[in-house]
């Protein structure tokens, strides 16, 4: 059988776009990781989205979809002024709050979402929230324990937003680069290999985790979920070790 250019061109199109259409129909052609957090599997909250699984790559819009909290409220809580808060990626909070003494980032959003929706979240680690967020939460039915936690973990709004519940003038101009490769910060997608590369030994990692380290390419967060370890606690402890060897 001999082929000339035109049938070859047709076959390339048919195989390529046919393959894409077929795999799309089968649900195999995902071009991004799902932005849906895992759900609680047991207890009174079974089936509801778990705030502990919120990731830095989520936007306020993704959180609105999974947790029903309007993007505008989230923008107000974190003093983000943008025309379209649904597109604000929460990984950018770290950049916006970089000047703050306490870290405001993905963990803060988890805390806000959990308290706003009355969902459980482990409060044994330190997570900070800006004043605007705390004010919004105080309108909710918080337990005395949650209120006490909130009071001790509230930090000032960024600069000009301190005395207002109005969206503060933190202007979002451009996205933070996806790969802040040089900073040694443990995040949801950090693998054991990255921590090893920063100079933390396998022995130290295993001491911190209390379990043997898996294949280094495994994401720390995935392994914590698998071993039912609290990622926030492990993350903080490993971060301390990583900072030591900086």
């Amino acid at each position, binding site marked *: *059988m*001999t*082929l*000339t*250019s*035109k049938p*070859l*061109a047709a*076959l*390339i*199109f048919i*195989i*390529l776009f046919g*393959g*894409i259409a077929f*795999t799309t129909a089968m649900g*195999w*052609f*995902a*071009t*991004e*990781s799902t932005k849906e957090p895992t759900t609680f599997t047991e207890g009174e909250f079974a089936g509801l989205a778990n705030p502990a699984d919120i990731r830095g790559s989520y936007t306020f819009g993704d959180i609105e979809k999974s947790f029903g909290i309007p993007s505008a409220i989230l923008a107000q809580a974190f003093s983000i002024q943008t*025309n*379209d808060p649904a*597109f604000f990626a929460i990984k950018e909070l770290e950049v916006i709050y970089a000047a703050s003494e306490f870290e405001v980032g993905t963990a803060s959003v988890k805390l806000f979402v959990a308290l706003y929706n009355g969902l459980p979240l482990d409060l044994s680690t330190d997570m900070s929230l800006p004043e605007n967020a705390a004010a919004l939460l105080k309108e909710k039915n918080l337990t005395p324990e949650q209120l006490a936690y909130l009071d001790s973990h509230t930090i000032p709004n960024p600069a000009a937003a301190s005395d207002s519940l109005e969206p503060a003038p933190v202007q979002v101009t*451009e*996205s933070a*680069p*996806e*790969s802040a*490769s040089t900073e040694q910060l443990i995040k949801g*997608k950090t*693998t054991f*290999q*990255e921590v090893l*590369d920063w100079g933390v030994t396998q022995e130290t990692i295993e001491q911190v985790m209390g379990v043997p380290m*898996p*294949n*280094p*390419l*495994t*994401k720390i967060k*995935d392994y914590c979920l698998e071993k039912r370890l609290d990622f926030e606690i492990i993350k903080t402890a490993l971060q301390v070790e990583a900072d030591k060897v900086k």
Partner: protein
Amino acid sequence: MKIFGKRLFRPRSIWIRKIVQWFFFLLIALISINHTLIENGGGIPFLSTASLHALCPFGGVVTIYQYAAVGTFVQKIHESAFVLMIIGFALAFLFGPVFCGWACPLGTVQEWIAKLGRKFFKRRYNQFVPARLDKVLRYLRYLVLAWVIYVTATSGTLIFAVYDPYFALFNFWTSEVAIGGLIILSATLVLSVFIERPWCKYACPYGAVLGITNLFRVFQIKRAESTCKADGACSIMCPMNIPVDKVKTVRDHQCISCLECTSEAVCPVAQTVVFTTGAVK
């Protein structure tokens, strides 16, 4: 057009390939722009918003090890890259590296610059590298491939993105692009004025993977010795400098299945250089 078995008009090149190349170039360029627009709250309707990593079949190749070892993808790589890798292999198994010759926008851009080089240097174009050195350098891309697979497997991150000229070509306006990628892209574009497809020949790790299929692909470039006039036109026009006039079947790992050497384009004798599964005399 044929009259009494003789062709009155013989195209010098495979024009439909140029159209297909334009199509893929524009498609990828628009998707890249759309990805940026979406991140900033805009977007072009009905067009994919995927990142370039999600649409790169080579992303699927570099993630194979991690997928086999821990069942996850390298950061920024998604299922779609895996699917495209499989489709790319299926196409290459049947037709050789048609991805390179017909679809890859970086290959296309190098070809566009080649036109300029041809205008300047005429027949000396694409003949500057001494043959012996060239022969050795052609295997360099397998070293690049081995290095990319090694660093990706040990780091679990897409380190090659920092050097990838393809990524730089479609992301030079974003903050994601790395200076290494821009330098390699610039070097590739400048070298293309002297050498046709320098990145493809000497460095592209994906071209290296696909090139292996030239050894066993189903449709092959074959030359009928009985009708061949031995004028060497096929070899002169081959962008990859393959001596088509010296072999019966092209099995060179560098062939990109562009069909430019065939009797449909540059070979002046009908049915002499063909793309076929069968035998030729």
